[in-house]
Every structure is written in structure tokens, then in C-alpha cells.
């Protein structure tokens, strides 16, 4: 009994081991390319949220590293530059917990007002949370608000039937505002 268990287990383990090595190898081949694609996606979102103030985003690894200590959910910070290279705003790419994770970019201008929100990916329930996370009426409410943290139901009307998603996005924006505060 014991012997056959060992026999089965070791064979299964062998197969898994070979599979793991193969997958690791494949991953190492495509890793860089995937990272590049993700950077492109982030940069696109940052461009969208900084567009209202006419700033060009530039990813800042130093600021990202600095802020990530206090805000582990931060993915990346972009500095928004005007034509003269002055920083006139920031775009924070972060993930926030709704019902599941929502990855979003939040643009904040020099006065700490939200310039725009762009949801990059959301894993919310299709048909309930997911449409709410992409609802322009809901997302549009955040524009121009801040730098004080926003409260759902007072500053922002949530989406009916998508309480968690509304909360998740509001929390994400507040996180961005906090980060902006700590950068001042």
C-alpha cells in the first residue's frame, strides 16, 4: 500500500517537475515582452487621465519605489510634464479591491484635483460590477474633486447593485489623493 502510494506520487511528481521546468523556460522567454506590453497599457491609461491638463506622462521608477513602501497597492507613478518639463500633475496606476481587483489609473493635477480615471482591467462580476467599473457617468463624478478624501454617498453617488465596485473605485481614488498629499 505504502509502496504503491510512493510509486504513484513519485511519478506524478516527475511529470509536474518536467512541466514546471518547461513553463519556467517559456516564461523566461516571454517575460520581457509581457512587461513591455503592460508598461504600454499603463502609459496609455496615464496619457488618458493626464490629457485634460495637457500633460505628458513619464514613468518615474524612483517615486514608485518611494511610495510603494507606504502604499503596497501602487503599481506605478507617472509624472505629468507640461511643455517646459515642469511637473504639473501625477498619474497613479494602482490596484484597488472592489469585489475583485480593479487596476486603474488616476490623474491628479497640481492642486490635488482629480483630472480623470481610467479603469485598465477589472475582474468584477460581468453584468454587475464590470459595467459599473466602466460607467462613464459614475467615473466622471470624480473629476475635479479632491484633495480631501472622497466619501461615497456624499461626494460620489455609487452605482446601484455595484456597491463593492463603487467602493473599490472610490478607495482607489482616495489612495491616489493620499499619495499626492505625501508627495507635496
Amino acid at each position, binding site marked *: 500500500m505504502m509502496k504503491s502510494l510512493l*510509486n*504513484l506520487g513519485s*511519478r*506524478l511528481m516527475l*511529470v*509536474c517537475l518536467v*512541466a514546471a521546468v*518547461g*513553463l519556467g523556460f*517559456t*516564461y523566461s522567454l*516571454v517575460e520581457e*515582452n*509581457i512587461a513591455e*506590453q503592460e508598461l*504600454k*497599457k499603463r502609459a496609455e491609461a496615464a496619457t488618458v487621465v493626464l490629457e485634460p491638463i495637457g500633460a505628458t506622462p513619464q514613468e518615474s521608477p524612483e517615486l514608485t519605489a518611494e511610495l510603494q513602501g507606504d502604499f503596497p497597492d501602487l503599481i506605478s507613478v507617472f509624472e505629468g510634464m507640461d511643455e517646459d518639463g515642469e511637473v504639473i500633475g501625477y498619474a497613479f496606476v494602482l490596484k484597488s479591491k472592489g469585489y475583485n481587483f480593479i487596476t486603474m489609473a488616476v490623474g491628479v493635477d497640481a492642486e490635488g484635483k482629480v483630472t480623470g480615471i481610467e479603469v485598465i482591467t477589472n475582474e468584477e462580476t460581468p453584468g454587475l460590477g464590470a459595467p459599473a467599473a466602466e460607467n462613464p457617468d459614475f467615473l466622471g463624478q470624480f473629476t475635479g474633486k479632491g484633495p480631501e478624501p472622497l466619501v461615497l454617498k456624499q461626494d460620489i453617488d455609487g452605482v446601484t447593485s455595484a456597491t463593492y465596485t463603487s467602493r473599490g473605485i472610490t478607495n482607489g481614488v482616495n489612495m491616489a489623493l493620499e499619495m499626492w498629499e505625501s508627495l507635496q
Partner: protein
Amino acid sequence: MEKKRTNFGEFIKGFIRVNPLLVLMVGLCSALAISTRVESCIFMGLAVIFVLTCSNVIISLIRKLIPDQIRIPIYIVVIASFVTIVDLTLKTMPAIYERLGVWIPLIVVNCIILARAEGYASDARVSHAFMDGLGIGLGYTCVLLIMSVFRELFGTGEIVMFNTTIVSLGSKSMPTILILFPGAFITFAMLLALLQWHQQRKKPEAKEGPE
């Protein structure tokens, strides 16, 4: 009477005689959902051919080393590994990856692949298993292409591939239902009917068994 297996025979049978979609009727879910665009079908087809052929070959290679009790977990590990390879590779092409979405990871549980592993590759020669994977995969892809050409062309009025319009009917008022789920069932049913009709006509009195 069992016919002798030849490489070519194993390859060609996937198109009509044991076509996974039209005859075995496995893997329908992804086929119905994805056949709205020709472009996605090409990539889905390639992904399925790759996973099916590779897992068939590997499982056939190690078939004598796999004890019966743990064959299913081993098949799943093999299949899942190949699907992950496809998944990682497609991630480098975001436009296509986003369109295929969840269907690529779901190839793991696509019945076609497990059915071929369990029902065929587990006791077939490696060369036969390879041909079987290729044939069945291509058979699947062909049906996908037929369905998607029909649905995209008549549902939207044009076929768009890689951002260029290949064929256009020049009409904007097309039966959108073809693109929606009912359209998938209708198209599939018509294909099935066509195949049945063809086979009945081919051998009118050959079938003498009980109806």
C-alpha cells in the same frame, strides 16, 4: 471490422468522420462563443491544434509509464502546461489576447483535448497520436472558420481581419442575430443538418440496421 490504422487515415478522419464538433460534439462551448470573428477563430484554431498535437504526442510517449490510477491528473498537468505556454505566448499580442480572453485558459477544460488524450492517445503509437492531434485540431479549426465566415459576413456585413476589411457586402442592415448567441446555435444546426443530409445521400441503402 476494425480498419488498420495508417498515418494518413488518422489524419484525415478528423475532418469529417470523427470531426470533434460535428460528429463527436465535444468542445462546443468555445466554438459557439468564439465563432463571431474569423480572426479570433484563426488564433483559437492554432492554439487548439498546438495544444492537442503536443499533448497527444507527450501522452502517447509516456503512456506506458502512467499508472491507471493517476492518469487523469497527469493528463491535466500535461494539457495545462501546454495551454499555459500558449497563454504566455499570446500575452505578447495584447490585441488578440484581449479578444480571445478567457477562452484560451479554458482550453484546459476543453473536452476535445481530454477526450483525445483519454480515448485515443493513451493507447496509440506516437506517430498516430501526432496525426490524430493534427487532424482533429484542423477539423475543429475548419468548422470554426466555416461558422465564423458565415456569422461575421452575414451578421455584420463584412469580414475584418487585422484591421483591414477583407470582404464587404456594402450593407449596414444585416441580421445581427447571427452574431449573438442564437445565431451560433442556428449556424451550428445548419452545418449539422448539411452534414447529415450529405451522409444520408451518399449511402441511401447501405444502412440496413435498425433505424
